[in-house]
């Protein structure tokens, strides 16, 4: 459900008034509904490389209405800007300015997606400069888009094709309503690993997934989304939250495991439960987290230690147990919830930001370890999400916080859940060690 202001200015008098007064004009975002088309309207594939041709052919296979050249005044659902063979900054002009001519034809909730190569893998300074240039281009363009349209990019490591499974998986994710609140972000595809699902509506069919902190808020939304995508669920939360946990478990036909994840044996108990009930474990979602906010000058050991113990130490210990387990070996996936606080910092949250930045460090370092067994690990960093927690922020502060992003509204718990479900799927197998922000391109934290 969108916030009241967004509903007010989404049509009729309210829309007119907001426009005249120069007020923010958020729109109700297009979100994924099972059975709905991937995207409404034609998709323009801009670019003349072999990669562009291959992508256009794939999109036709997906039964999308594909254009290789824009038809003036025709409303577009998406523009895919393929920039995978750039060598010099001068190479940007033609494809970019050609695409620019179509920007005014984008429909509400449209998508602009760049497909380019990682700058870090380039040895030529000019190539690296050009590739890095796409970063600034895309992030700025995303800020110029209006009416719920978003701009995101796929970065291919050298040697990775534009049609590799994870590149196509990321493309589907960005095109779809699943990425509604992801804006101005890049996903790096580092290998050809991964596999597209047999049934795009059930990408997690046959998978056994654990979600911590599943009793309410974002955790409950993750449980619902993973269930919708076909996963079998084990839901974990502290014993004191057991009644809410049971309600969510009964809703998504999962099992409730009341467990304090900061216990030393938490990892083993999760593995034992999964092994006994399902014989395996495929997906671990580290969502559980707490805040104990205080200015650092007023911080005490209790607040500091509680946050570190739950938000990062527990994840490290559980991952260690998982990576040593014989039940977590078949394309295992780990997705952790970080936070934009861990990227940009937040006043009063030194402990929380330290723990969430720690999650990002953990994800990057664990990628190699889990890669050895064909798995992946990633993090999602939510920005301002409409939850019980953010509902307690004083009105004025909350109102400012939720408008300070390119989409001019707060995200929904399900937006975070969608990003997690994608990264937990085999389609994202070639993406590992990444942090994906779900923040509507929040103005803080880059």
């Amino acid at each position, binding site marked *: 459900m969108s916030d009241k202001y967004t509903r007010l200015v989404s049509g009729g008098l309210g829309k007119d008034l907001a426009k005249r007064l120069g007020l923010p004009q958020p729109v109700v975002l297009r979100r994924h509904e099972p059975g709905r088309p991937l995207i409404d309207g034609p998709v323009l594939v801009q670019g003349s490389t072999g990669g562009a041709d291959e992508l256009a052919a794939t999109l036709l296979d997906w039964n999308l209405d594909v254009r290789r050249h824009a038809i003036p005044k025709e409303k577009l659902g998406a523009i895919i800007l393929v920039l995978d063979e750039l060598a010099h900054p001068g190479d940007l002009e033609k494809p970019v300015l050609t695409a620019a001519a179509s920007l005014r034809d984008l429909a509400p909730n449209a998508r602009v997606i760049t497909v380019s190569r990682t700058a870090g893998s380039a040895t030529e300074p000019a190539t690296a400069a050009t590739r890095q240039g796409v970063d600034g281009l895309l992030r700025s363009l995303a800020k110029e888009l209006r009416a719920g349209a978003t701009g995101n990019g796929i970065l291919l490591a050298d040697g990775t094709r534009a049609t590799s499974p994870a590149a196509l998986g990321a493309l589907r994710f960005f095109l779809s309503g699943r990425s509604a609140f992801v804006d101005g972000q890049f996903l790096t595809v580092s290998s050809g690993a991964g596999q597209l699902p047999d049934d795009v509506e059930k990408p997690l069919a046959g998978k056994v997934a654990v979600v911590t902190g599943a009793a309410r808020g974002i955790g409950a939304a993750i449980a619902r989304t993973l269930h919708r995508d076909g996963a079998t669920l084990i839901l974990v939360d502290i014993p004191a939250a*057991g*009644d809410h946990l049971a309600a969510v478990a009964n809703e998504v036909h999962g*099992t409730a495991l009341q467990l304090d994840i900061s216990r030393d044996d938490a990892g083993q108990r999760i593995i034992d439960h999964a092994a006994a009930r399902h*014989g395996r474990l495929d997906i671990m979602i580290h969502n559980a987290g707490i805040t104990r906010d205080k200015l650092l000058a007023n911080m005490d050991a209790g607040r500091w230690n509680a946050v570190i113990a739950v938000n990062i130490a527990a994840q490290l210990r559980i991952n260690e147990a998982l990576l040593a387990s014989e039940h977590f070996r078949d394309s295992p996936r780990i997705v952790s919830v970080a936070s934009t606080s861990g990227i940009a910092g937040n006043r009063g949250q030194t402990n929380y930001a330290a723990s969430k930045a720690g999650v990002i460090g953990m994800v990057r370092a664990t990628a190699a370890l889990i890669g050895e067994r064909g798995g992946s690990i990633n993090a999602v960093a939510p920005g301002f999400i409409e939850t019980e927690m953010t509902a307690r922020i004083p009105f004025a502060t909350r109102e400012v916080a939720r408008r300070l992003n390119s989409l001019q509204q707060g995200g929904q718990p399900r937006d975070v859940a969608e990003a997690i479900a994608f990264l937990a799927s085999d389609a994202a197998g070639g993406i590992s060690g990444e942090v994906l922000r779900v923040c509507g391109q929040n103005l803080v934290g880059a």
Partner: protein
Amino acid sequence: MSVNGQSVPRPQPATASAAAAPAAETTQHVDAVPAQLRKAVVVGGNRIPFARTGGAYTKSSNQDMLTAALDGLIARFGLQDERIGEVAAGAVLKHSRDFNLTREAVLGSALSAETPAYDLQQACATGLETVLGLANKIKLGQIDSAIAGGVDSASDAPIAVSEGLREVLLDLNRAKTVSRKLQVLSRLRPKDLAPDAPNTGEPRTGLSMGEHQALTTAQWKITREAQDELAFNSHRNLAAAYDAGFFDDLLTPYRGLSRDSNLRADTSPEKLATLKPVFGKNLGAEATMTAGNSTPLTDGASTVLLSSEEWADAHDLPKLAAVIDGEAAAVDFVHGKDGLLMAPAFAVPRLLARHNLTLADFDFFEIHEAFAGTVLSTLAAWEDEEFGRTRLGLDGAFGSIDRAKLNVNGSSLAAGHPFAATGGRIVASLAKMLHDKGQVNGRPARGLVSICAAGGQGVVAILEAL
């Protein structure tokens, strides 16, 4: 055993003594019924924390609480939309509108709506009796899975109209004319308007349960110190069990409670010693029973998932313990032959004799703490040579138990005692303790459950580790 010319099966004892059953009877079994009884196992349990009456569950009905306990069990074991063989539960304090309490709770839960259910009522033994009855059905092959349970609310207790008002209302309904209706109404007297609240008094003696136990406590010369010590151990053991996470997979929070509200983790024998006696003040002897060594009125609900071994395996669910056997007994407390709550003192010796077991063959004793005096009077009777000879027909005393094996994770004095919910609490906890213990001296760990009940009744049972 013949109905319309077709022989019907007769249940066999579920134990080693089955071999001693007359051979002729086994030949009468129809082919569809296995000659060998199968095991009934405890898969696990779930209860809500118990709350002192007038506390967290004041506004919760029996149906609310039983449904919550069921939903927690369903979530723990993934039983959503599952058609369970049968669900049996009950309440001691029950509204007349709750005639189908258990079935209504099932319909309100996440179980398949095609799960049948029935209510059972045997005072405080209700919960344990649902376990035994359903376990027997599983052993016989009538059902593969079952949920036993119980619930009670002393907060949301039924209040009836007085007998006088009730008779007038019924006659009024039957009256056909206005003049006749007025005639009936004229019989009403102010005293008829006073409601008839439930109480825990015994209908045949007028004495409350506490006053009855006070007689027994005095008869067996149980000291105040011994009762307070038992109460202290109950609180200490229950608090330690919570701290160790023992209840993490036995309990689901409800209405803001995640621990039993009666638990006093910080109590001490000294604090208990300061409490004034509340029962047995007119007996002449020293009054020893206080609010500290007696259970308070409590609200709560519990459930136990039972099944055949095959069903548990097919559902990838744990098998904690087997329900071996049970026994009910009753005493003539009306004429003062025995104390109101002393029936288990007779039920246990009979049950153990059937299995050739002694008290030394058990690793856990779960003796329901209606009052500390109840537990101690029962143990005293078993240790008494005279009682053993004259009342149990033994050569001497029945025996004594190792106190270190008694109510090791706390019992009703600390947790509270929502009458019908106590059996489920004990069976689920004991099954987990037995499973954790595993084998003892080359045999499965063994536990004894003993629950006394109003009306001079008692039900006891044996569980063994799996």
